[in-house]
């Protein structure tokens, strides 16, 4: 795409995209670390995830401030407008994603010391899948790539299946051994948080699709992929 006649406009948009990418990187890292902390019962890593959330919140505020400034000063239109609005919305969704990672980290001290049941070892795989969805959605935004955004939607179905399977496994554990109920209840929330992260990543992908094409993903009609 050509550059703007007003160079500062390109700088503003570049900065906005940079901030969103940075937020996405931190959120993905928070998910990965929270799951590592869960797997290894690493309380200091869990604390690191909780403490790291403030940085993501600050970035979100910065995205909002810059987006409002761009709208006020540059009056963006067409793809520029869609991109600025998407950046603002994506930042708010990524902040929520990071909150889920923080929630997972918060549960780790509460199941500390209990004998770890086996699903604890498969939850990190679900965590990786959720983290990858976040990364792919944000990469699609960075590349303005509508097809890459659509691929994220497909991953969400796989993540949902993963959640259903873990859910059934965890319930079985509770039924078979009531002593695990407290721990499993926490793990159910962890799995649910990861499933929600996938939903939010899907949401980001939908925003990326609209920003890139000007078409709401639900209205894409003929462009529906099989």
């Amino acid at each position: 795409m050509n550059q703007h006649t007003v160079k500062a406009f390109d700088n503003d948009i570049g900065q906005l995209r940079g901030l969103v990418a940075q937020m996405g990187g931190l959120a993905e890292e928070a998910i990965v670390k929270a799951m590592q902390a869960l797997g290894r019962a690493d309380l200091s890593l869990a604390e690191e995830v909780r403490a790291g959330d403030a940085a993501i919140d600050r970035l979100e505020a910065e995205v909002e401030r810059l987006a409002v400034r761009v709208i006020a000063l540059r009056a963006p239109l067409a793809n520029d407008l869609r991109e600025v609005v998407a950046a603002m919305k994506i930042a708010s969704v990524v902040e929520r994603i990071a909150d889920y990672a923080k929630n997972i980290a918060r549960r780790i001290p509460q199941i500390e010391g209990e004998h770890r049941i086996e699903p604890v070892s498969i939850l990190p795989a679900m965590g990786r899948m959720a983290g990858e969805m976040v990364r792919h959605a944000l990469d699609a935004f960075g590349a303005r790539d509508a097809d890459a955004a659509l691929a994220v939607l497909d991953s969400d179905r796989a993540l949902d299946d993963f959640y259903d399977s873990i859910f059934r496994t965890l319930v079985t554990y509770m039924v078979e051994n009531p002593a695990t109920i407290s721990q499993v209840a926490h793990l159910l929330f962890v799995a649910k948080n990861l499933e929600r992260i996938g939903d939010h990543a899907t949401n980001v992908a939908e925003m990326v699709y609209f920003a890139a094409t000007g078409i709401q993903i639900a209205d894409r009609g003929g462009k529906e992929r099989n």
Partner: protein
Amino acid sequence: MTAGTKMTVRDVSVWYGAKPALSNVSLDIEREEVIALIGPSGCGKSTLLRTLNRLNDSVAGARVQGLVTLDGEDVYAPATDPVALRARVGMVFQAPNPFPKTIRENVAYGLRIHGLARGRADLDAQVERALTRAGLWAEVRDRLGDPALSLSGGQQQRLCIARALAVEPEVILMDEPCSALDPIGTARIEELIGDLRGRYAICIVTHNMQQAARVSQRTAFFDAGRLIEYGATSELFTNPRETRTRDYITGRYG
């Protein structure tokens, strides 16, 4: 032409001397819509505006080819009287250009020359109605005998709109009507355009993209004498079909 169409432009080309100003433009102007014409300087948008009410007739060397109709009748037919046409298709110019007369006379002038008033009382009533529609009546009712040039720029522009409205036009052409006005004057004119919509077909040329987006239902983008894209304003400014339109409205032009 559909039932809602007021004017049609078909394969219209305009030359000033040997220089082409507009090439093969076709579009419809709907009865109850505001249409905005946008594009870089020299793109032909003002030329099209002036073609709609034959203002180009007085330009030496100007030549128009193609068909322009008003209610299905050929605007350029030999039988068409350009003066009568301009009463039906009124024009508001870039800089407010009231006559150096009183406020009342500015509005009454057109009524007189077209013989549209029956006596003093009728004339006054029509002057009041035009000034009311132009959103100026409350501000000038007590000073109708003052010189028009004593009004502010924004008021002068609304007076020019009242002058155009007085002769009961069917179409109003506006050539950058706010470019000489401050933000408040601009807001008043934009509000007025909204009020006038429905009663008149309105065609506005503007360099202000936000203004086009605010006041119009359809927008036409011109570049180098050609109509590049014409469609719903809401679409054109959020998701233009043509790359050239996008580059222009997002400030990536040239």
